[in-house]
């Protein structure tokens, strides 16, 4: 009898798991169950569409018909997994029962919205799916001003997109710098100054206290001040979606995410689950430089995790080692990225970090048109082991970072 593999979730981890499972087992019956109406798209590209650089159709790579025709994978869109019974190996979704031999949970994360008054008013958004993006796009047409809550890379990319579309934009951040935690202040400040020069206002050290308005948003209160706006986007981080893991009683780690083995298998009371695999934004895995858990929550990590989960769900024996979580973003014409630990993350892991830094050009001195380039490398002060690197460039940061040996 063919192996029955059920995958819940259609993001990078879920669909990669499905394809990896097919590659491993040509005969398996593979079913992907997803609440999303769109699959196989890049959420990172949503700001680009809002800015008019791309169209929605450009960022969707495949539809369910492609997976059926090319890989014999059934993708059930708009279908919620209502319950999972680990003992009966059964998922109930859309009123139908799906029996599995192997289950992959790739339900990702949910944008964390602080529990403040007014958070459910009309014109308050998060940005996670294409549906979110389309709702924001519609509201932008009738708005003159926006507040972005959260100055991480997603918040900044949204701020740039909205500013470029003519909105007055204010970014409110509870920490004392933009791109907190993953970028050091000296690498983040040039981005902030660049965006300020383009008309984006920043309010730092300002926890959001409430969203104001009657029928719809009229402003945001943060650190005692009111900031008027027509719409609000919360980009305040992503929390693991634990609804299904909790149905199965899976162990939750210290970061509030599912603890998994290198084979992407979860635990129940410390006991490895042999028929269940978890991948993507809802797991915590081992940090390579941090010597502890980390939530990578990057598409690149999700793909690697999904490949291991899918292969193993189909009978394979793959593992995923500790991760460095490389990230990169183009923000308003500048590019910033990093890998490993920032100074503050190193402190969180109890590591004394020392950093070296140098500046130059993105091109050889004899090649005209180069832009400013700054590279920072961090090491553990006691072992001298390299624990992180950051890059800030006017162009080509991706090429530089992939070309660098770090």
């Amino acid at each position: 009898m063919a192996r029955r593999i059920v995958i819940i979730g259609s993001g990078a981890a879920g669909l990669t798991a499905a394809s990896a499972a097919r590659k491993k087992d040509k005969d398996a019956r593979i079913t992907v169950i997803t609440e999303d109406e769109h699959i196989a798209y890049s959420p990172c590209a949503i700001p680009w569409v809002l800015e008019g650089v791309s169209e929605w159709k450009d960022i969707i790579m495949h539809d369910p018909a492609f997976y059926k025709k090319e890989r014999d994978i059934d993708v059930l869109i708009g279908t919620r997994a209502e319950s999972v019974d680990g003992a009966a190996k059964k998922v109930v979704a859309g009123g139908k029962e799906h029996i599995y031999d192997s289950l992959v949970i790739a339900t990702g994360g949910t944008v964390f919205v602080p529990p403040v008054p007014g958070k459910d008013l009309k014109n308050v958004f998060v940005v996670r799916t294409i549906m979110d993006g389309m709702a924001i796009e519609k509201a932008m047409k009738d708005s003159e001003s926006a507040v972005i809550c959260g100055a991480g890379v997603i918040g900044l990319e949204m701020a740039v997109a909205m500013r470029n579309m003519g909105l007055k934009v204010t970014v409110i951040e509870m920490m004392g710098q933009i791109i907190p935690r993953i970028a050091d202040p000296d690498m983040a400040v040039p981005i902030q100054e660049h965006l300020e020069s383009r008309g984006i206002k920043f309010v730092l050290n300002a926890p959001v206290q409430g969203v104001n308005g009657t029928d719809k948003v009229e402003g945001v209160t943060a650190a005692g001040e009111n900031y008027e706006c027509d719409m609000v986007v919360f980009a305040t981080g992503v929390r693991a979606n634990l609804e299904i893991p909790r149905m199965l009683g899976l162990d939750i780690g210290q970061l509030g995410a599912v603890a998994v083995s290198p084979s992407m298998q979860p635990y129940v009371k410390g006991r490895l689950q042999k028929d269940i695999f978890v991948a993507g934004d809802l797991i915590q895995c081992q940090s390579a430089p941090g010597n502890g858990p980390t939530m990578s929550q990057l598409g690149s990590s999700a793909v690697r995790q999904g490949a291991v989960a899918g292969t193993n769900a189909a009978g394979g024996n793959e593992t995923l080692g500790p991760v460095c979580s490389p990230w990169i973003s183009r923000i308003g014409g500048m590019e910033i990225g990093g890998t490993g630990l920032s100074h503050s993350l190193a402190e969180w892991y109890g590591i004394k970090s020392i950093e070296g830094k140098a500046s130059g050009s993105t091109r050889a001195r004899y090649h005209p048109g180069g832009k400013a380039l700054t590279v920072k490398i961090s090491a553990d002060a006691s072992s001298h082991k390299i624990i992180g690197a950051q890059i800030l460039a006017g162009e080509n940061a991706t090429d530089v970072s992939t070309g660098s040996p770090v």
Partner: protein
Amino acid sequence: MIARGETVESLLSYAENAYCPPTSMVKDVVLSAAEDLRDKITKVI
């Protein structure tokens, strides 16, 4: 190199042999940052 647990010294050693001739100043900036880091570590020691 992070994943392999390599040190600043091994990065410098790698980088010294990694480019010849340099086709871009980019490698120089990475190398300069590593040298700056080594100097700071040396001062701490």
